């Protein structure tokens, strides 16, 4: 959920910036996330309990992603103490030196995948890219794998893939070629692009936001699509005739950082330590389908057994999915995205 309508976001950010109190009191921090139901869930799972335990005030804001952080840091106007980003954005921002070092004497990193623990960023939750299809079109015999999705003879119908998240679409394109889930990374970009080339003539829409992916499936504009599991879960909850599973999902992590120049970074560290603690991490799946980044959350006993199977980062489900590698995309994103854009626009 890293991209949404930027114009909207900019307007909102502008309005927020104009009313934001310039110098926050020492016991107040500002946390930015993606907004919507996801941030509401985070408020209940992370922010409110942390504010209460530490006796601080947590103000909230929404972000559009890395360019917002870049704007604040390079413009010397940092107003956030903690912000959420996609993991590949964290990896890129880290390379650009946009974040404060995290203090792992304060933050307990145990239980978090080492790939998501870095000097200046740490994993916070997971989103999965899954294959969704409409059961009113296919019954329960819809496309189950990305190879099925690519097979336009066997599964005729309208299709949508993400056009804004090249990383995700290239990952599923690699899976469609039959590459096993543990061999997808490092992605053979040219091979994945060839795979996209094969299917692109049959793609009716390249979505650019989670809401759009949801709308395309919900309204029956497409019969199958790649979609974020949170959105897919919402569709299922709303009673839409859809089916999806975590088989061959692409697990993408979100992370949190302290933007360089934060005025309350000591409190931010303490708050971040709470956010990633197994106890609060276990709260998240109670409110939203995004799974906790800390595996120990599943050991707390807070998550009901029948809920665990729906959570993308539950150990059982992780085995079925590809873990998107932020370090890989840090170095290849620009080139891969430009090539991907060239390809889908032809």
């Amino acid at each position, binding site marked *: 959920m890293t991209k949404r309508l930027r114009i909207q976001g900019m307007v909102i950010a502008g309005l927020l910036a104009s009313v934001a109190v310039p110098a926050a009191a020492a016991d107040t921090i500002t946390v930015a996330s993606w907004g919507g139901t996801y941030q509401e869930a985070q408020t209940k799972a992370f922010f409110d309990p942390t504010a209460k335990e530490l006796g601080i005030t947590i103000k909230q804001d929404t972000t559009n992603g890395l360019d917002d952080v870049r704007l604040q840091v390079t413009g010397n106007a940092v107003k956030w103490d903690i912000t959420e980003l996609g993991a590949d954005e964290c990896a890129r921002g880290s390379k650009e030196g946009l974040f404060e070092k995290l203090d792992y004497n304060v933050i307990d990193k145990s239980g978090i995948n080492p790939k998501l623990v870095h000097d200046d960023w740490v994993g916070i939750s997971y989103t999965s890219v899954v294959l969704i299809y409409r059961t009113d079109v296919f019954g329960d015999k819809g496309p189950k794998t990305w190879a099925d999705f690519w097979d336009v003879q066997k599964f005729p119908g309208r299709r949508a893939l993400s056009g804004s998240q090249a990383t995700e679409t290239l990952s599923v394109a690699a899976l469609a070629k039959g590459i096993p889930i543990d061999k997808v990374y490092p992605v053979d970009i040219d091979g994945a692009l060839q795979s996209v080339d094969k299917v692109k003539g049959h793609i*009716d829409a390249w979505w650019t936001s989670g809401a759009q992916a949801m709308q395309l499936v919900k309204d029956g*504009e497409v019969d199958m699509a790649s979609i974020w599991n949170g959105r897919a879960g919402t569709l299922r909850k709303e009673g839409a005739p859809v089916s999806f599973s975590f088989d061959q999902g692409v697990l993408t992590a979100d992370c949190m950082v302290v933007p360089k120049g934060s005025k309350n970074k000591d409190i931010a560290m303490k708050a971040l330590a709470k956010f990633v603690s197994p106890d609060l991490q276990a709260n998240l799946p109670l409110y939203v389908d995004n799974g906790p980044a800390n595996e120990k959350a599943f050991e707390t006993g807070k998550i009901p057994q029948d809920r665990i199977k729906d959570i993308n980062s539950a150990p059982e489900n992780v085995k079925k999915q590809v873990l998107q590698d932020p370090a890989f995309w840090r170095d290849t994103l620009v080139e891969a995205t430009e090539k991907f854009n060239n390809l889908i626009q032809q």
Partner: protein
Amino acid sequence: MSVASASLDHAGRPDAALNTDALRADARREARGLLALLSPGLVLVFAVIIVPIGWLFWLSLFDESGELSAANYARFFEQASYIKTFVTTFKVAFTVTGACVLLGYPLAYMLSQLPRRAVSICLIFVILPFWTSVLVRTYAWLVILQRKGLVNTWLMDLGVIGQPLPLANNFASVVIGMTHIMLPFLVLPLYASMRTIDVDCLRAGMNLGASPAATFRQIFFPLSLPGLASGVVIVFVLCLGFFVTPALMGGGKVIMWAMRMEQTTSLYSNWGAGAALGVVLLAVTLALLGLFHRLLGARATGVWSER
């Protein structure tokens, strides 16, 4: 010339030269006064338009490592998708402008012929959508045009078509959505200009034996051209920077320049990459405005300032 002999002519009026000097001084004083009155506006324009655009241009000259370079501009030629986006942007803008003229001219003409009371009612129908959020209208079009939307459902129920038409998520839907949004921008200036056409000119034409069609063609249409031209320019230029409608209705296949700017700004770590796109669009738009100005005359591009 000597003051004594030239200061008064034989009728005792002041000398023309003296008069001119006094008038000139007066004009200069007035110009200074007007400039003083204008200065807050000028300062504002300078601070919020000229300076940021200059800054944008400056930023576009630096690459990701902060070195002075033409890399941001070279990218347009290295990556085929930029040229493609540029062509798409102009294709959309031309098509939408054309559709607006075809729909808007008859509408404005009808409005100009109606009695005042009827006009105010009809204008409400033109302006009401104008006040509705672009986002809302775009989604409304999606509801109407998509595969299981109103148009396709009706046509299939009536047996006109067997398979749903691909109306959403393509070039056609972008044009439909944008035309709806742009139409008032053409109709309003056009109607205003048609309203000022002197009915006596038309009567005179008829009186001299011209048919209604000839009167329209030879008198009304040429007189309405400045209004049409200004509407066309407004619609065309606004289309070039459109974002929301193509982003939501283009199905990711119709990428316009503004969408490309958004992509590029978030993809590259230097602002220059996105800034260069802005500079190019601005330069091309200004060049086009200059062209319009030459082709259609000053009144087309300056019509607002004359009012």
